[in-house]
């Protein structure tokens, strides 16, 4: 059933008598052309684009819990392409372009809203760095604008301009950046992939792999049986190392926790997204009215999916310092996601490193914005057995050759990226 206004009205009048499953709940086939492990946004988008762009429809997405139960459902829903380095920026810009038409593409309102993002500038040196970045964005065809302090003040009148420890001297704006409804993205890709014949298999955890004589990966084992596949694609950011270890692989990845927060819902206050340049704080407001914000990683390896108080204090010290009216609003809920922190802070999309295996990992804390482009490029990589031009810098061997994509310039220290 195609979603439309008509459809909503009919369902309203018929008390949803004709409502149907958003995606099927099929029994697995014995073998697939491609098996995507991980029913998050990336895995589902990969399956969708395999079917849509490459005509490969004998595809299953395998999810250990319910789809979107990992980072797809735990992030702060921002998309943007304000990166510095040529290995990243064109890829993320492609992603923004895909976000711009995603509702129509998927026939699902993922509520992508180009509300803009402002990175605040607090010193001349920081402005120089942001200008370099803004120019790199423009070179890649993205939009960027440099705002002076007065322009920032017009846009975000509620910040502390007069008594700040780190005065606000301007901002780098990407107007086409924005937010989307994270669960909607998962469900939209799932439904659209399902319509193209992709099997979505929930509650099937991969407990092992079957291997061919040459070491090739030939299938997966689950508590409910083995599923064979010609190609097996890993899209399990947060748990990449855990699955890779079942294949005897070690990855340039460590798992760390990133916390996120939402306030009680309030009437519209914050127009877009903005980030504090002298503390660890960023914020936006959801359609429902909650202020969604976050800051730095909890800086130690963890799979606990929960964070600790020092980071919360750090985030809110930044938040309240920047935006003093926040003090009286209330924290409603906090949660945490497992970040696949790669050794240079940038993602890995590649063929291998074993025959039949494809790797999509290391998204650090920035995977949500990449969802459509990651699916797009990973599907290309899997279908054609060659890297997509936009992800050719994101290969695993860059650590060996030294072609690292280190946006922050902090080196092989995942908790600092």
């Amino acid at each position, binding site marked *: 059933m195609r979603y439309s206004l008509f459809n909503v009205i009919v369902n309203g009048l018929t008390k949803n008598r004709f409502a149907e499953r958003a995606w099927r709940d099929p029994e697995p086939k014995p073998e697939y052309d491609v098996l995507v492990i991980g029913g998050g946004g990336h895995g589902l988008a990969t399956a969708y684009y395999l079917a849509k762009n490459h005509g490969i429809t004998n595809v299953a997405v395998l999810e250990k819990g319910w789809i979107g139960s990992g980072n797809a459902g735990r992030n702060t829903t921002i998309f943007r392409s304000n990166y510095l380095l040529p290995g990243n920026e064109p890829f993320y810009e492609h992603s923004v372009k895909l976000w711009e038409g995603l509702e129509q593409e998927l026939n699902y309102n993922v509520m992508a809203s180009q509300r803009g993002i402002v990175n605040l500038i607090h010193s001349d040196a920081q402005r120089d760095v942001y200008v370099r970045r803004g120019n790199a964005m423009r070179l890649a065809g993205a939009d960027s604008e440099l705002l002076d302090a007065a322009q920032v003040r017009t846009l975000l009148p509620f910040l502390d301009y007069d008594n700040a420890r780190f005065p606000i001297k301007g901002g780098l704006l990407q107007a086409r950046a924005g937010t989307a409804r994270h669960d909607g993205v998962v469900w939209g890709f799932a439904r659209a992939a399902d319509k193209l014949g992709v099997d979505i298999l929930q509650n099937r955890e991969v407990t092992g792999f079957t291997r061919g004589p040459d070491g090739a990966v030939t299938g997966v084992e689950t508590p409910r049986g083995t599923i064979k596949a010609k190609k097996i694609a890993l899209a399990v950011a947060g748990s990449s*190392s855990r699955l890779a270890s079942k294949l005897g692989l070690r*990855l340039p990845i460590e*798992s760390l926790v990133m916390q996120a927060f939402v306030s009680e819902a309030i009437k519209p206050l914050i127009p877009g997204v903005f980030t504090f340049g002298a503390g660890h704080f960023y914020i936006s407001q959801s359609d429902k009215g909650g202020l969604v914000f976050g800051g730095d990683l909890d800086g*130690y*390896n963890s*799979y606990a999916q929960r964070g*600790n108080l*020092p980071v919360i204090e750090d985030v809110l010290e930044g938040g309240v310092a920047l935006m003093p009216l926040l003090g009286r609003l209330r924290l409603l809920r906090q949660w945490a996601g497992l970040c696949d922190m790669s050794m240079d802070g940038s993602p890995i999309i590649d063929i291998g490193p074993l025959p039949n295996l494809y790797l999509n990992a290391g998204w650090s804390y920035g995977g949500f914005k990449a969802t459509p482009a990651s699916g797009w490029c990973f599907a290309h990589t899997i279908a054609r057995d060659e890297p997509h031009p936009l992800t050719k810098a994101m290969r695993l061997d860059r650590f060996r050759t030294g072609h690292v994509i280190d946006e922050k310039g902090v080196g092989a*220290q*995942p908790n600092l990226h």
Partner: protein
Amino acid sequence: MLIPCPYCGARDAEEFSYRGDATPVRPDAAAPDAAEQFHDYVYLRDNPAGAFRELWYHSAGCRRWVEVERDTLTHAITATRFAAEGRRA
């Protein structure tokens, strides 16, 4: 999270800086496969979900590097020692 520093006693993790996995050993630069060994040393990690040996630096305390045995699933700390001792062990 309280880390029992062997010198200072239990202190909040806020006082420490984190490095990560304590197990990789810096390879011999003169080895014929030094490039490969350094690649593994600098970049590859077991990244276990569970028992983990890791390095914390008591930067706001005694400035000793402390090797901590901690479970990455529960954050439970089972042992700590000066890193230098772990290295000699």
